[in-house]
């Protein structure tokens, strides 16, 4: 995919934004991750930050200069173009992370079920039936915005956000689902909790998930939650 099909926005002296579209869409997001993999492989000094429909590139302008030492954007543009024209970088191994969820701990599970006109059991079945993709990570370290939610489970955010959502909360906000890595203020509907730690500064990489990863949820009960939490050191 040559760069001619991509809109480049000059964001700052050291930042460009490549825009692939303007919507939250699985296909557009897949192009973002494909481009991130290609540029990351060809130009490792450039930091790639994927989001739903665009890819932020942060670079050192002093590495892209003309003979007078002035920034030469066309050199950077050519290098990106050639990276994107190259072969697709295969995503091997295809990482799929399974996140165990105790749905009984979801304070808003009943509300989501009522909103969808389904039983709680059916909500859990539909939430665990799909493979999601990490569209991007933002809001807080390790917070994944997941694409692929069953449309019947979509539900607007709460009118008044909670001051503190417990760490590990699995939640629905509009068409999206995600997991709160730590206790944070938040307005999404809470449908369950996971005992696994999503962000750990002592681990490398510190985030359980990275943009582009595949995710599945697996239902567990309270006893399994407690056992995993004790092993993971996330027990309250």
């Amino acid at each position: 995919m040559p760069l001619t099909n991509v809109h480049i926005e000059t964001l700052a002296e050291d930042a460009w934004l490549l825009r692939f579209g303007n919507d939250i869409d699985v296909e557009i997001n897949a192009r973002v991750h494909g481009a991130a993999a290609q540029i990351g492989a060809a130009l490792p000094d450039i930091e790639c930050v994927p989001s739903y429909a665009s890819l932020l590139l942060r670079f050192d302008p002093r590495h892209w200069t003309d003979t007078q030492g002035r920034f030469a954007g066309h050199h950077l543009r050519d290098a990106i173009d050639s990276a994107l024209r190259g072969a697709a970088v295969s995503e091997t191994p295809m990482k799929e992370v399974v996140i165990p969820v105790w749905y009984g701990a979801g304070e808003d599970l009943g509300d989501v079920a009522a909103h969808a006109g389904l039983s709680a059991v059916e909500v859990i079945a539909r939430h665990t039936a799909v493979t999601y993709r990490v569209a991007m990570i933002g809001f807080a370290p390790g917070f994944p915005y997941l694409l692929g939610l069953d449309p019947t489970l979509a539900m607007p955010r709460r009118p008044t956000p909670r001051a503190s959502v417990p760490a590990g909360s699995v939640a629905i906000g509009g068409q999206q689902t995600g997991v709160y890595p730590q206790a944070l203020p938040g307005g999404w509907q809470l449908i369950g909790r996971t005992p696994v730690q999503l962000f750990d500064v002592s681990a490398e990489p510190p985030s359980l998930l990275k943009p582009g990863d595949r995710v599945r949820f697996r239902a567990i009960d309270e006893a399994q939650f407690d056992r995993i939490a004790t092993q993971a050191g996330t027990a309250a």
Partner: protein
Amino acid sequence: MTIELIKSGLLTSIQDAGRRGYASLGLGRAGAMDEPSRRLANALVGNAHDQAVMEITLAGPTLCFREAAVIAITGGIIEARANGQALPPWTTCFLPAGTILRMGGMRHGCRSYLSVRGGFGVAPVLGSRSTDLHARIGPCGGRALRAGDAIATGHAAACSWFPGGNEMKALGWGLDPQPWLDYAQAPLALLRGHHFDALDDASRQMLFSGRFVISRHSNRTGTRLEGTTLQLRHPLELISEASVPGTLQLPPSGQPILLLAEAPVTGGYPRIGQLAAVDLPRLAQRRPGDAVCFTETSMDEAMDRLRRRDDALERLLRRIGQRLESA
């Protein structure tokens, strides 16, 4: 050696050049808000440029140095007394063992940078000693320093500048804070942002002719601007995109927010402008209540000013190194 905090000051934290490479995992860079001042503080004590310093906001801490130390304070001009004796700003100083360093109010600017020879010996977190107060990641669990904290300093190689002794001493020369510290509070250079054209006619004009005032609700994440309200022609429905420091975004309130060192890695507000990177440290030195005016710039001009600033900084850093060596 350790430095003990007897009083914390208003907001004091450990910062280096920032934590790079984790934005795709949701973690921004943080780091010193006024990076040239941080680098000059390190140079004045003979440290490597990547050492962490103490970032001090508006009202300074009181520190106890159990052992002798060589320090410098750059950035905002802050009242500092070592056992009652005034310390000259932007100057290399020797503090004897047992010094109580009391830092008071800031006369100019908003953030001072205290370096200590040998650097601060706090353990890096994800490759950096910067404190991300918002994400709560970094030294001391990612929080601001508080009374009772004991901060380790790194090994300080011997230097011939000071013979030791029991009194505070300062080198006979220091740096002129100008042009690094912007006393005149001149207009700041702003690039048009992606959504500039979505502003209504009056707001497009007001952005470059209006006078904004820094809100007291500003922090290391962003400077909130009051005084002039801006409006879009019609609301925009935007999806979240990556964001960077320097972006001027417009939330529905009409009060713009200029993102700073702890800018969130993603955001969904319209981006109406981008502060020229060369002016980020100048904004970081304005305090709540100070005025901000913007003047329009182009990317070429912004790049050119940044390059000239960096060249001037490198020259000054080299001269400091040479002067210390010959001392």
